[in-house]
């Protein structure tokens, strides 16, 4: 009997930038990274899917708008409906919102400036594939780097997101307190990441894939990828 290695697919869109870092993070944390292509209708039997950061299709029209209708999104949608773990990072988060797989939208930072900084994120729920090995209230340090990361939602969506506990991460001070100064982009309620109603689709603006190697900065991304691999394995053996 062999111990199976969770296989995590990372979709490359034209203009993706962080696909290789995401694959590398998966491998660093002990998983098998599987490169996926936006124009294919094939998830290659992976156990989890990551939509990486970057500027898919040049971010023409709106960030993530064109990618949200890419061929492989049909397969991601079916995979998500079957309960498969899906993680969208930065541009990937924007794509999932544009595809209607996550509520809300991401607009230009309130400062109108691109931000590139390490932020602190408080885990709001452990009931998702990327937070299952964390405890609500824990704070992880992860970098953000984006110009359009201000999370917004309609009043109705926001009520549902907060009432049903769909906020996965909030920008906080190092000690865990929500504050305006801890919010890098003006996101409503300091929201850094959300999930869908079922909890298996998660999007966040910070980049956990850039935070797994202690040689190059904070390692707050490690528990997210560790959780994702555990969830992927659970799905694979289910």
């Amino acid at each position, binding site marked *: 009997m062999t111990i199976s290695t969770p296989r995590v697919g990372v979709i490359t869109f034209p203009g993706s930038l962080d696909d290789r870092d995401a694959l590398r993070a998966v491998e660093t944390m002990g998983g098998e990274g599987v490169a996926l292509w936006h124009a294919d209708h094939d998830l290659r039997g992976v156990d989890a899917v990551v939509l990486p950061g970057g500027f898919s299709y040049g971010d023409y*029209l709106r960030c993530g*708008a064109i990618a949200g*209708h890419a061929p492989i999104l049909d397969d991601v949608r079916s995979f998500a409906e079957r309960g498969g773990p899906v993680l969208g990072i930065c541009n990937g988060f924007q794509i999932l919102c544009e595809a209607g797989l996550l509520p*809300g*939208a991401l*607009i*230009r930072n309130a400062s*109108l400036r691109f931000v590139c900084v390490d932020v602190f994120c408080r885990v709001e729920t452990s009931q998702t594939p990327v937070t299952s090995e964390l405890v609500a209230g824990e704070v992880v340090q992860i970098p953000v780097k984006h110009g359009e990361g201000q999370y917004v*939602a309609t009043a109705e*969506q926001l009520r549902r997101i907060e009432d049903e506990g769909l906020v996965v991460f909030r920008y906080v001070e190092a000690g865990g307190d929500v504050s305006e100064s801890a919010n890098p982009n003006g996101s409503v309620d300091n929201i850094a990441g959300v999930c869908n109603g079922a909890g298996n689709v998660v999007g966040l603006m910070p980049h956990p894939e850039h935070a797994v190697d202690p040689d190059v900065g904070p390692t707050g991304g490690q528990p997210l990828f560790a959780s994702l691999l555990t969830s992927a394995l659970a799905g694979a053996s289910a």
Partner: protein
Amino acid sequence: MRCTFEVLVTLKPGLADPQGKAVEASLPAIGFSNVSDVHVGRHVRLDVEAPTEGEARDQVEEIARRLLSNPVIEDFRVLEPAEAEGPA
């Protein structure tokens, strides 16, 4: 028949409009200090081949709703068509 449509996409009121702000901030430099409330939207022009203008318009409405705009943050308006019976 082929119909030409134009769609205007604008940010919902109250949302940050950095392009509008940047344009507004640059106007005093060219001598206009009396301008405020500048907003920048998106203009999309498209030709649609359909049996009737009504059907073409319905398609444009759907295109605008599903791709050209994001209902969470944007409003859109389909302008009246300037019918173009151009060569195929």
